[in-house]
């Protein structure tokens, strides 16, 4: 090794060591619990004395436990008396049988010293930054402007963000990079804000200074592409997919939710409202259809249709997923571990997990194959009838009845799913899904509130005529409440059968009789039953017709989309804790409550999901705004201010720029009223963002992760962007928005669904070329090239896509017909010009950069090689490219060049 470097490193190490020792040993300095003590405890003690294990009755997870009396009868920590504390004594113990950490290396003297000093100073148990509110911070005063001469305004300083960044850069061998050239920043902005390369006119207007940087940013933020781009990020969090997941993985209609996200982002719906509608849209007063669609955020959970699976087990699985996802998405908190035990590191207790889960345990969905509840989307004709019914009920009934009818027409809830039947005689739960009674069969549906209704709505289908159904109160000898005959149906029907008015909760004993059918065959398959209060206005002219219209509307097949609907009071479930996270091992009953370590619950909030949304969006919640700021920052810079974007807490990295994080969080809430566009605009307007990402190896090595932002962000584009960009520059991209997922070309036999007959049917026309956000996503077999570029299968919430760099990616962009077709279409545009100008045009079209002579030279050579090969080889020239009619060697060679351009790192990355 170079001697000079060696001694330099030695010197550096000595200085660092001295700094460390000084920080640690400075006697007067008050010890910071969060920064100095908690990490030592977490690293060395908590594995045995923490949330999972509490050896000797001692835990260092919570203050009360750490200060309390252990099994020995003593406290480990005596505040004010370090040397007298058992903790310190055991750390210094020489006998390895007694020394802690047990059977591990002794802690360093410096660490023990630190702990002792902390106890001497009173052993104050500090709060972690993540659980305290963002602090109002003054803007940093930058003394040297990191090497820029004072007096003249630094070109780096564009807004207040830059002051925070510069302040952290000071004292390091770093200084801000120059501003990126206009063409580079124009492309970076367009890709970051809309996921697409810039429109040529807009690009020209900006690069010729016809419009300002800010106008350029505003224009991009106003484009509909903005919502489509940022939706991919949110849909990862929301685990949005077009299939139900698990083994069968059948299709489902969730796309209106995806469209809702795109619209909400484009309209810049404030994040608090965006949050509330998704978590509790159904609980808002008189929710709109859009607000109901928004609740599908939590219907993106998987749904298990596999025969033999217990619907309740998978209902519980969705409730757990909703709990975990809510905390991961809004609170940067991985709460899942607490399901089984108190969190080993974060101060969230075992019971608190179930308190949180209780918020999600009272929705109507029960893992049924029909995915009820679904919002019903009526066409204009039927909608007229729906309106008539609603008007009638409003006119003749009270507000409660009006609401009940309106709800039932909207989503057909509340209803009782008959998979909850038990005590079967001569009958079964067909495929563990539907009530199937044989001749002389019976089953019991417990705890039913019949709403004093004189009719029951029953959904069923049957292949037999003449099955007599009797429903009795409570048991086989009970009073007959209803008796009717079921005949063969053409598919599923909803029938209205008379029912004896009863009050209160009863058990329904359901019997079937049909001597004419073979033994052990189902008289019918019953899906659900509902008890709706009687239609008001009896005796009024038109009553009968209105009743008929109602039933007809219910039986009208219309598009339906899963939503969340809360249980009415009489259907409320109690929530119990599970032992070790096992849903079958239920223990204590718990109430809805949020973790004590976070903000306090306000009395005015309803104790349901709506209250939870209010708690999350309260300006007293320390994590919501910070989480959003951190994740948006990560989207733009490829790194979070807290690098562990999944987690903010005692296990997370400390923020690289704590003051900036808090400043942005407060600004988002107080000045921007939760506007995401305003947050994004703040960041991209900064000088920090506008820097060039070009650097040299030595500078790069100082901060390889770019955590101090002495250069602009440079990352490979995301899966969706790579495809969208290829289609955009070749002119193939369709700008059609919304609607069901599309199926662009993918290789044969990628879908191998054993249990479902569902197939990948290649989309026609412009649907082949829609933006990637509209591509059909089958969870067990996502679109292959997206997976290769690190998109996920969206079975659960994905906070971060790990960016990889693999040969398989090269194979996609080189060989996937989608990319070849894009190359061909770019080549078509290149061929109008002479060779050099054509190549330069293609390159510039793709990269928004003028081609350098040596690059042109390289590409021209590739063109020439290709051309001579296509000319000399008659067989190949017919085969390539496999699009369009023109098979000239010239066009084929240009296609090869275009394919090469679209494989350049500068094309696949934003610089």
């Amino acid at each position, binding site marked *: *090794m*170079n001697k000079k*470097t060696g001694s330099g*490193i030695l010197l550096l190490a000595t200085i660092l060591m001295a700094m460390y020792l000084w920080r640690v040993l400075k006697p007067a300095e008050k010890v910071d619990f969060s920064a100095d003590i908690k990490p030592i405890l977490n690293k060395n003690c908590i594995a045995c004395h923490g949330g999972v294990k509490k050896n000797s009755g001692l835990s260092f997870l919570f203050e009360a436990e750490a200060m309390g009396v252990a099994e020995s009868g003593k406290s480990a920590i005596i505040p004010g008396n370090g040397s007298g504390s058992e903790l310190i004594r055991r750390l210094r113990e020489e006998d390895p049988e007694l020394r802690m950490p047990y059977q*591990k290396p002794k802690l360093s003297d410096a660490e023990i010293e630190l702990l002792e000093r902390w106890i001497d100073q009173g052993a104050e148990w500090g709060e972690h930054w993540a659980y305290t509110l963002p602090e109002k911070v003054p803007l940093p005063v930058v003394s040297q402007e990191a090497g820029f001469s004072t007096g003249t305004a630094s070109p780096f300083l564009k807004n207040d963000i830059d002051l925070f960044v510069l302040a952290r850069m000071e004292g390091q061998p770093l200084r801000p990079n120059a501003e990126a050239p206009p063409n580079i920043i124009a492309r970076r902005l367009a890709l970051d804000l809309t996921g697409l390369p810039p429109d040529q006119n807009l690009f020209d207007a900006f690069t010729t200074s016809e419009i300002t940087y800010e106008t350029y940013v505003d224009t991009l933020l106003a484009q509909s592409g903005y919502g489509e781009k940022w939706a991919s990020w949110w849909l990862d969090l929301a685990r949005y997919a077009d299939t139900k997941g698990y083994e069968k993985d059948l299709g489902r209609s969730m796309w209106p939710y995806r469209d809702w996200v795109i619209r909400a982002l484009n309209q810049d719906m404030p994040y608090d409202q965006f949050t509330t509608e998704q978590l509790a849209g159904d609980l808002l007063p008189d929710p709109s259809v859009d607000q109901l669609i928004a609740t599908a955020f939590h219907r993106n959970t998987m749904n298990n249709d596999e025969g033999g699976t217990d619907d309740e087990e998978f209902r519980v699985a969705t409730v757990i997923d909703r709990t975990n996802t809510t905390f991961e998405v809004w609170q940067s908190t991985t709460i899942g571990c607490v399901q089984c035990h108190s969190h080993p590191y974060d101060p969230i207790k075992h019971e608190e997990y179930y308190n949180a889960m209780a918020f999600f345990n009272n929705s109507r969905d029960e893992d049924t194959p029909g995915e009820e509840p679904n919002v019903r989307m009526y066409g204009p004709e039927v909608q007229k009838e729906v309106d008539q019914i609603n008007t009638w009920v409003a006119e003749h009934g009270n507000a409660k009845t009006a609401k009940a009818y309106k709800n039932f027409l909207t989503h057909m809830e509340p209803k009782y799913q008959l998979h909850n039947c038990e005590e079967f005689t001569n009958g079964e739960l067909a495929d563990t899904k539907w009530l199937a009674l044989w001749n002389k069969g019976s089953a019991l549906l417990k705890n039913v509130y019949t709403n004093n209704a004189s009719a029951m709505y029953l959904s069923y289908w049957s292949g037999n005529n003449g099955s007599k159904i009797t429903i009795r109160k409570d048991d086989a000898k009970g009073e007959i409440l209803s008796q009717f005959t079921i005949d063969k149906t053409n598919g599923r029907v909803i029938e209205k059968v008379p029912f004896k008015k009863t009050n209160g909760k009863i058990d329904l004993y359901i019997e079937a009789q049909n001597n004419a059918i073979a033994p052990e065959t189902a008289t019918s398959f019953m899906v659900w039953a509902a008890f709706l209060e009687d239609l008001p206005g009896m005796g009024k002219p038109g009553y009968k017709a209105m009743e008929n219209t109602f039933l007809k509307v219910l039986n009208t097949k219309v598009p339906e989309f899963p939503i969340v609907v809360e249980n009415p009071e009489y259907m409320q479930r109690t929530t119990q804790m599970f032992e070790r996270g*096992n849903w079958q*091992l239920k223990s204590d009953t718990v109430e809805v409550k949020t973790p004590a370590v976070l903000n306090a619950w306000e009395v005015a909030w309803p104790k349901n999901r709506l209250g939870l949304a209010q708690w999350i969006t309260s300006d007293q919640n320390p994590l919501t705004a910070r989480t959003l700021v951190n994740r948006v920052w990560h989207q733009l810079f490829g790194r979070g201010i807290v*690098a562990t974007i999944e987690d903010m807490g005692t296990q997370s*990295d400390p923020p690289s720029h704590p003051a900036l994080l808090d400043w942005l969080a407060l600004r988002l809430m107080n000045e921007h009223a939760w506007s995401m566009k305003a947050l994004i605009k703040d960041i991209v307007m900064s000088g920090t963002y506008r820097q060039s990402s*070009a*650097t*040299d*190896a*030595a*500078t*790069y*090595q100082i901060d390889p992760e770019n955590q101090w932002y002495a250069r602009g962000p*440079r990352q*490979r584009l995301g899966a969706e962007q790579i495809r969208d960009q290829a289609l955009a520059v070749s002119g193939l991209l369709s700008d059609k928005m919304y609607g069901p997922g599309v199926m662009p070309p993918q*290789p044969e*036999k990628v879908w191998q669904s054993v249990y479902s007959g569902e197939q990948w049917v290649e989309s026609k026309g412009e649907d082949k070329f829609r933006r990637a956000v509209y591509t059909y996503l089958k969870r067990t077999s996502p679109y*292959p090239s997206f997976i290769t570029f690190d998109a996920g299968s969206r079975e659960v919430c994905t906070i971060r896509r*790990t*960016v*990889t*760099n*693999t*040969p*398989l*990616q*090269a*194979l*996609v962009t*080189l*060989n996937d*017909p989608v990319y*070849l077709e894009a190359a061909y279409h770019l080549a078509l545009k290149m061929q109008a010009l002479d060779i050099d100008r054509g190549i330069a045009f293609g390159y510039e079209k793709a990269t928004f950069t003028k081609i*350098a002579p*040596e*690059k042109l030279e*390289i*590409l021209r050579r*590739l063109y020439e*090689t*290709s051309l001579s*090969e296509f000319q000399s080889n008659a*067989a*190949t020239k017919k*085969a*390539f*490219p*496999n699009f369009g009619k023109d098979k000239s060697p010239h066009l*084929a060679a240009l296609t*090869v060049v275009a*394919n*090469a351009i679209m*494989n*350049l*790192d*500068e094309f696949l990355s934003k610089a």
Partner: protein
Amino acid sequence: MDNMERLIKEKIRRELEAQTRRHFIKQCASGMGGLALGSFFLGCDPLKNEQKGMKMAFSDRDLNPLATMAPPFDSKVKNIIYLHMAGAPSQLEMFDYKPELRKLHDQPCPQSLLEGKKFAFIRGTPKLLGPQAEFSQVGESGHWVSDNLPHFKKVIDEVAFLKAVHTDQFNHGPAQLFMHTGSPRLGRPSIGSWVTYGLGSENQNLPGFVVLTSGGKTPDAGKSVWGSGFLPSVYQGVQCRSQGDPVLYIEDPEGISRNLKKQTIDAINQINKDEYAKYADPEILARINQYEMAYRMQIAVPEVMNINNEPEHIKQMYGVEPGKESFANNCLLARKLVEQGVRFVQLFDWGWDSHGTDHDNAVDLGLRNKCREIDRPMTALLLDLKQRGLLEETLVVWGGEFGRTPMQENREGKKMGFKGRDHHGDAFTMWMAGGGIKKGASHGQTDAIGFAGVDGRVSVHDIHATILHVLGFDHEQFTFEFQGRPFRLTDVEGAVIKEILA
């Protein structure tokens, strides 16, 4: 900037970078012993371009993160084949013979064993379930093996058993993550990634770390069990399909010759090198290498993944089913891959979760079929490696993510229709064979009913420490700096299991 100037700049920059790198290696090497620095910098440069005269001081690892590196300690062992039975196979029907358990069959499990224990599905007081297979002692080593594995008996003297492995995870996903990454939570690199990072690959035309799955499903924990965690992504496992195209888009479009593809990639990479000069982003170098590798993979992968060309007797030996996805095919592929110099081959076979809820997962029925599916191929694998002289340079590891209870599972406290065993992390069996491993050894013992290890208990970290040791690493020194601290595969634990080393 003209070419010469660029080259000079590049050289200066390279030297600067090399210093940093040497410093890094020095740090590692000081603890790692005789790491041959030279191997880092010498060797062929796969990207050298004679035409442009760009013979630069690119180190192998910069241009090719999979360039071969010698381990710090001498080792003959170059490759690993890791056979993971996903779902957790029952040691009590395969290797851990417990005659006492047979005598106690159907007796209630003693309370003393249940106190303070929790199980995934067992409730109340379960009954003990005697071994659901016959056992015999075989080979010179006299190991007990069940009749579920008749072929395996032939190679019993090649392997070393670990009879008292334990884990603290009792659900599949976390336990698989733990077994393969040393942590039950997401985010750590898998063993295969560590090994490929540490040793590179012998074959630059194939991925260094290949994953093959069978049994109809991928592991519960998903692709993270072969993920690279915080290591560079190039070290993650590449899943190859044993039916259909082994890797999607591996075929060139019709009409594009190999030469033209080469010219295309050369052009792309030349331009990317310019880009690197401007941005100094190592991802660009990695991409250059990935394109080279993609080109070579296009030939090498279809070749190596094609088992049709193997001689008939070899196919029969493994019991392969060409065109299907099977453990047998994967075992043969594993041999072919290590023969070609692939560093780490990871096989996952799904379907070992013998709860006894139906025929397929009953320990006396479905488990027998699963054993039959692996018995012949894994035996053939050992024999085939041996006859080719590859066994000495290959470590073969077999195991699951945990074991199964000596008690019969009683879901919801009820007797179930089939015989099954619940998840059990306290004691289970794994085996290793091949280079560096003591033939015929057996380490560790469980109690009379196989509930817990009473002697020679080894942890998941110990397994990892041993694997790394066999490959020539000291697991305590083999670290990667991430988020301000050095990380190891074995975290802060692990001890080499010397008892099974040759």
